[in-house]
Every structure is written in structure tokens, then in C-alpha cells.
């Protein structure tokens, strides 16, 4: 439940920021949104099982599902790279924050 609420709040904030004019705010919106999706991915494994999923050491009934965590790790790396690139676009040449005459 806590996880669902957190995802909801993050998506709300993310969408609000995405709809802003300035590029920096849009990037921050994406940061929130990708956190939301990462939590969604985490919650697709059963979150109540939290033992380290080590072969032959953990009880499969209580061990966490490692696959969603691997997904999240991959997604974080990709989101991080794109965030940096988007910040570069935000500072290059012009500032979108101001009114656009065209």
C-alpha cells in the first residue's frame, strides 16, 4: 500500500513537472517519473520477501525475487545517462524558461 501511494505521488509530481515550460523542470519530472516506474518494477516482485536471494543459502519461500531488481538496476543506468544528456540540451544555446517568440 505504501509503495502504491508513493508511486502515485511520484507520478503526480512527475507529470506536473513534465507539463512545465522549462527544460530543467521537465528533466526533474522525468527523474520523478523514472523513480515511480522503478518502484513499480520492484513491486512486481513480492516485496514482503526480503532475504538475499543467494543460491543454496536462502529459503526460496522468503528470498526476494532478483529479476525485478536486475530490471531496476538496468533502468536506473539508462535513465541516468539520458538525464545527463537532457541537462546538456537544457543548457545548450538557449534557455527555454523564457517566453518563446517564435
Amino acid at each position: 500500500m505504501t509503495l502504491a501511494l508513493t508511486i502515485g505521488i511520484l507520478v503526480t509530481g512527475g507529470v506536473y513537472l513534465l507539463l512545465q515550460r522549462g527544460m530543467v523542470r521537465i528533466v526533474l519530472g522525468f527523474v520523478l517519473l523514472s523513480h515511480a516506474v522503478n518502484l513499480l518494477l520492484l513491486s512486481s516482485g513480492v516485496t514482503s520477501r526480503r532475504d538475499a536471494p543467494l543460491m543454496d543459502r536462502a529459503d526460496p519461500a522468503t528470498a526476494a525475487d532478483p529479476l525485478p531488481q536486475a530490471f531496476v538496476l538496468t533502468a536506473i543506468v539508462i535513465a541516468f545517462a539520458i538525464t545527463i544528456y537532457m541537462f546538456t540540451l537544457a543548457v545548450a544555446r538557449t534557455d527555454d524558461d523564457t517566453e518563446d517568440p517564435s
Partner: protein
Amino acid sequence: MSAALLPLIVAVPLLAAAALAVLDRSRPVRQTLLMAPSAAVLATGLYLVWLTRDGAVLVDNVALWPDGIAIPFVVDVFTALMISATALLALVCSAFAIVTGTADTQYFSSLVLTLTAGVFGALMTGDLFNMFVFIEVMLLPSYGLLAMNGGLNRLKAGRLYVAVNLLTSTIFLAGVGLVYGVTGTVNLGELAGLAKQDPLVAAAAAVCLLALSVKAAVVPVHGWLTRAYPATSPAVTALFSGLHTKVAIYAIYRLYAVLFDGDSRYLWIGLLTVSVTMVIGVLGAVGQSTTRSILVFHMISQIGYILMGVALFTPLGLMAGIFYLIHHMFVKASLFLSTGAIEHVYGDSRLDRLGGIARREPLLAVAFIGAALSLAGLPPFSGFVAKLTLVTAAVDAQQWGAVAVAVAVSLITLMSMLKIWGTAFWGSPPDDPDTVDGSTTMVKVRARLVAPALVLTATTLCLGLGGEVLLGLASQAAAGLIDTSAYVEAVIRP
């Protein structure tokens, strides 16, 4: 060929890209490294078509992980056809970029190779999460390519493009998460048919399909394409037009066939959206005044045609759709390359500033009009075969609305192509001294700048005259989508 070599199709372009990032000082080395991997993949792709022509499915599970955890690379005849078409396009567009000098920009070659590696990976993967990863591998270099060496407009287009695609990827990732949450797997083989049985899985998979529809630029989520593509350089537009949206279309075909098992309950949604896409795309083109923006709107309209195959989901419909997809990749890129050549030499793509090019550039005019007639669907080009099969399939399925839309839209397409032809190629040059005048300016399009477009126009002519070969392969590919058991069997137990 052993299936264990399949990952090389992704690895070789990636390694070449890495090598290019270091070795981009010398021009010959750079050009060879840019062209060689695509040429090698083209040869491999054609060989794979030969291997899979009777419906065989090649699978390799990377890194020897047990089934279900491993990363499967799967090639059936549909995949093999797409790999070959993609590699040919990458080759031709790279050649165009080399001739126009776009390829001399630092890292351009590396980015193009990474892009193609991502495309090949996305085509071959048999795993939903890896499809996301490969689509990202394809998109990351595209962000750079779209925004590189241009003015403010290009930068703005780059921002739009990144924002839309990142949002779409996030939605796709959420869809993958939901699918995993409901089913506990992301392996396409294990997911087969689940969306037909369980509405929850269908809802989760629909989130993925929605994201792919945005990437394929289906109306009403097409707005980003018409703004981003005309702003970038001609070579990049041609490359993107052939690769990006088409990968998304391929994924829609694949996912709907495997996950939904062609469930007929949802097909009306598809038919409705593709009809709207065809109409809105073609009408949008009417109001445009530069060659590239007209072509970009037509691309959206044509995407409606291609997706009509999956919306019908009959053997004939799928065959027509797959044929249309391959045909469209060549024709659209050819049009972008021939108008791109004009833009590169005459420095303008606005119709009111061009005129009399046909007399001055007969070769270029042939390349353009061939592809334009093919796009509108006139014989003897491949567009005629594609449209005829598609309309026949729609008649067979008794979807009269879709038939009417498809025929009417082709007429408007022809009108729009004639608009470019009539003003830029045939029209008299404008009086304004700043504008391009076919009779007084000294510039001329060099033959090697026309060659890439000409090669693709020749391909569409060959596909039209010898349509039987590709139709046979497309029919085999369609059979693989109707009955996915061979694909599923291969992915689960390689």
C-alpha cells in the same frame, strides 16, 4: 550457420562503433568501419532469410543461462527480412551521409553503428525487457544524431524528441513491470497466448502496445514525428524514417501475434486507429510547404496502411502488412534521400523556392518520381503490389470502411506527390533572384549524391516486378505470426 553466432549481428556493429570512437582520425578508416558492419549484416540477413524461408526458427540463448532467465535471440523469416532491409537502409543512408559530409561530424559514425546495433537487437530479442533495453540502445544515439551540428531549431527538435521518447520508454517499462507482476515472466515464449486468456495480462500488454504505438507515430500520438524529423539533417531523417518507427511496428506485429495470439476481440480498436491514421496523415500533408514535412506526414499515413495488416490479422492481411512494411522502408528512405539531395545542393526544401529541377537533374527526377509513384501505389512498383494485396485482404475480411479509406487515401497521396513533382521538378523557377533557378545557377547535384536514392528506387521497382519472391517470404512470415507454436517452441526449448 550456427545459431550461436546470432549475437554477433549486434556485437559487430557495437564493436565497430567502439573502435570508431578511437580511430576516427583517418577518413578512409572511418568510412570503411561505418560501411563494413552494415554490409556484413546485410549479407548475413539475406543468408538468414534463405535459412528460415521454410518456417525454421533459429534461437540462441546468450551466456548459457537456464531457459527462462537467458536472453534469447530469435530469428524467423520475418526477423530475417527486417534485418536485411534495415541493413540495406543503413548502408545506403551511410553512403549518403558520407557524400554529403554529414558523416564527417565527430562521432557520427559511432552513433549510427550503435543505432543499428540497437535495431538489430530489438528485432531479434525474444524477451520483453530486453526489447526495452535494445530500444533504448537504439534511441540513445538517435538523441545525439537528431540534435547534432544544427541550429537552434534542430536543438529544439532534439529536446522534443528526447522528451517524447523518454516518456514513451518509461511507459513501456511500466508495461513490462506490469506484465512481470501479473505473469512472473518477460520471456515471449512463456507469455505466448496469455493475454488472450487473462484480461489482466491483456491490460498490462496493452500498456506496452500503447508505448509502441507512440513510437510508431500512430494518430493521435503522432505529433512528435512531424515536428522532430523535418528539423534534422536529410541523411538522419532518411535513416530514422526507415528504422525507428518500423522497429516499433515490427514489435507491435510480434507482440500482438505472440501475447494476444491474434485475439479478434480487440481488432476493432486497431482498425479504427489505422483508418484515422491514414486519413489524418494524408490530410496533414496537404497543408505543408516544404518537401520534407510533406513526406513526414505521408509517413504517418503509410504507417496506418502497414498496421492495417495486424489490425485485420488474417493470413492475407498479415502477408500484405509485412510486404508493405518492407516496401515502405525503401520507398520512404528513397524519397527522403532524393529530396535531401536537392536540399543539400540547392540549400532549400521549401516548395515555393524550388522549380525546374527535372530538366536540370534528370537522374534525380527519375529517382524521385519512381519512389513517389510507388508510394502512391501505381504499377509496376512495389507499392502497387503492397496496396493491392492489402485491399484484397480487407475485402476478404469484409472491412468495407477500411477498404474505402485505403483507396481514397492513396488518391490523395498521389495528389500530394504530384504537388512536389509539379512545383519543384516541373514548375518554372521563381523570379526572386535568391531562389533556386534551374537555368542560371551553376550548382548541380553530383551523380554519387543521387546514387543512394536511385538504388532504393531500383529496389522498389524490382520488388514490384518480382513481387512474387517477397510475397512468398511475407506469406511464410505471416504463417509464423498466425501459428506461433514454432516460434514459442523454439524460444522455450532451444
